[in-house]
């Protein structure tokens, strides 16, 4: 399903026509916000990759090329919804209020989690073991249903869960078990798979012989395939699926076809496994340039684009500055919060480490 062609024309595919009124109902501000979000996302990616190259981050996980899939879906969520990310959805977190420096802290080795979901729009922590979060999100959505917090008809309180994962993660057992539980308990939930074509170096054809967009059907839920580089269809399809979830109509599976323009992480070298032609094909389908063309055709001004670029540069430079100022945690953090309740080994070992460090001449810090 597609609303916006790669050339930037609003020309819905037949199945997507029903989404048009949702787009027509969006004001200029909302439409421009999509562009601002995508521009910030791309700028942050450059900053993250540079910091890693400069030895300031252990790793950077780029989302270059996937901005439309992430921005459209995240902007479709309501404040009371919960979002369970994988580890690449930086802009989705920022849309929910996450300070990007928290992501940098995670990748700089300063934290294991780094933020409080309650304070950042119910944007949960990154999960590095693939597809683990699909089950957590399903359990959370089961809880919403058991609590009667969906399906009441009140749009201000009915809640849903949006979970992100990738084409590689669909092969994990947990991803299938999550679909089983979601279907069995009819959870208020949207499974949003960003198919960026590559699981590090392995193409999606090795993960699935049939289109992933069919995956949900076998589990008994509506299953869609959308153009993930089209921010409008990403927004509209997610919005409809989330509304159905909040209304108590159960889960939806969405495959968003996109492309990882960059490496998997900064530790990866995609020139070893994919061709320039392929990258070129997807570059012509870039989510930001097609959206810019469309906004221009609607009359967006040069000043708007300049201000969006400036805003993105400011955000990136600010986060870069603050990332460099991040300090290492103190050694008590090794032991704090391993358990919620008192635990003798934590007390003993923290005391031992203190005594050991302080036993050196002049004492340790």
């Amino acid at each position, binding site marked *: 399903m597609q609303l916006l062609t790669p050339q930037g024309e609003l020309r819905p595919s037949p199945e997507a026509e029903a989404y048009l009124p949702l787009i027509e109902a969006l004001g200029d501000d909302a439409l421009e916000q999509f562009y601002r979000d995508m521009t910030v996302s791309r700028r942050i990616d450059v900053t993250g990759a540079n910091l890693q190259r400069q030895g300031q981050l252990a790793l950077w996980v780029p989302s270059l090329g996937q901005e439309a899939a992430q921005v459209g879906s995240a902007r479709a969520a309501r404040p009371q919804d919960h979002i369970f990310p994988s580890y690449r959805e930086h802009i989705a977190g920022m849309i929910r209020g996450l300070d990007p420096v928290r992501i940098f802290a995670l990748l700089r080795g300063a934290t294991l989690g780094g933020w409080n979901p309650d304070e950042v729009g119910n944007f949960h*922590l990154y999960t590095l073991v693939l597809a683990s979060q699909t089950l957590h999100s399903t359990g959370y959505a089961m809880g919403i249903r058991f609590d009667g917090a969906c399906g009441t008809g009140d749009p201000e309180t009915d809640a849903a869960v949006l979970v992100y994962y990738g084409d590689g993660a669909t092969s994990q057992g947990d991803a299938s078990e999550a679909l089983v539980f979601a279907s069995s308990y009819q959870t208020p939930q949207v499974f949003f798979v960003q198919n960026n074509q590559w699981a590090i170096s392995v193409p999606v054809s090795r993960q699935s012989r049939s289109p992933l967009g069919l995956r949900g059907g076998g589990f008994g839920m509506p299953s869609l395939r959308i153009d993930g580089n089209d921010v409008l269809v990403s927004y509209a399809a997610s919005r409809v699926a989330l509304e159905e979830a909040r209304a108590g109509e159960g889960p939806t599976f969405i495959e968003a076809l996109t492309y990882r323009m960059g490496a998997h992480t900064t530790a990866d070298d995609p020139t070893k496994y994919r061709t320039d032609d392929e990258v070129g094909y997807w570059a012509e389908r870039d989510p930001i340039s097609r959206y810019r063309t469309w906004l221009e055709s609607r009359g967006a001004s040069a000043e708007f684009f300049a201000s969006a670029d400036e805003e993105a540069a400011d955000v990136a430079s600010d986060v870069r500055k603050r990332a460099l100022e991040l300090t290492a945690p103190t050694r008590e953090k090794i032991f704090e919060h391993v358990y919620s309740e008192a*635990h003798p*080994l934590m007390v003993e070992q923290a005391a031992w480490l203190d005594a050991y460090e302080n036993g050196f001449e002049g004492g340790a810090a």
Partner: protein
Amino acid sequence: MSTDTEEQLRAGAIEPDAANVGEAGPDAAGPAGVAAAADAPDAPAVKGVQTLSMAKAITAGLREALRGDDRVLLMGEDIGPLGGVFRVTEGLQAEFGEHRVLDSPLAESGIVGTAIGLAMRGYRPVLEIQFDGFIFPAFDQITTQLSRMTLRHEGRISMPIVIRVPYGGHIGSIEHHQESPEAYFAHTPGLRVVSPSSPHDAYWMIQEAIASNDPVIFFEPKSRYWPKGPVDLDHSGVPLHSSRVIRSGTDVTVVGHGAMISTLLQAADIAAGEGTSLEVVDLRSLSPIDYGPLLESVHRTGRLVVAQEAYGSVSVGSEIAATVAERAFYALEAPVLRVSSFDTPFPPAALETEYLPSPDRVLEAVDRALAY
């Protein structure tokens, strides 16, 4: 309650009929006793002592937890109308409804993974893994997610999840149905691991585990599900993570947990007939381990034999042997000796009596310890 009954209660060694010698008497233990207490609202409700199998003691503990907190829910395979393959949840779905006692899809990782999400939502899930050997599909969710979720959230959330696991041999069953995988979990930071040895402990420990804000792996010694024993419904005894001496002795300390306690008590009876006095320590908690009573005992006897159904290498028994050697070196008259199964997969059940530690195998180690 008489001192004798108290001692037997602690030991979990009391015979069903003998339970009635307690001051509560047989009537107080039944529904009539409960009703009588309800008729006298000014008096503290004394529930008395009931004679229960461990399976039914856990059922009773789960019922108390479900009544006491509406965020407690049970989830597992076949735990609804069937009541679980060991009938531990029998009647609970009928009593509390399908939203409190959930028959889950047949997927262990899914059970634990969704329970994590439910706990994030404020629930206190109590999960049943059908058999010891079937916990491994959930191993990833338990070790990489459940055990670290509180740390990852810097203490802002807790994971009050209990995973009940029937474990151990002596039931003559097929592969994957008789195993003792507790060391994997005791080795994992962020988890708590306990195992009751008697109906009384099972009744209280399951409730304490559910009340804990940390994840607890609750190993139920399935060969001890059916023997009955007294359960004091009014007094728990020691806290969840305490070990305790359940039979006093002077010559050699023997320590174990779960079903091994029954073996150790039999060994102590035999040894007593031969003039050797064994002190039996019930570990109860495998993570954290409460070394206090154990070290005090070793200081008295100078000898320690650690017994377990699990494989011996890199086991809970190994950890105890190392720690006691470090902390009670000068009190020891002999090396700490381990009695375990062998470092092989659990054999065909026809060989289980030769595979699992018996009272005689324990006594063989006791003799070796005394020979130093």
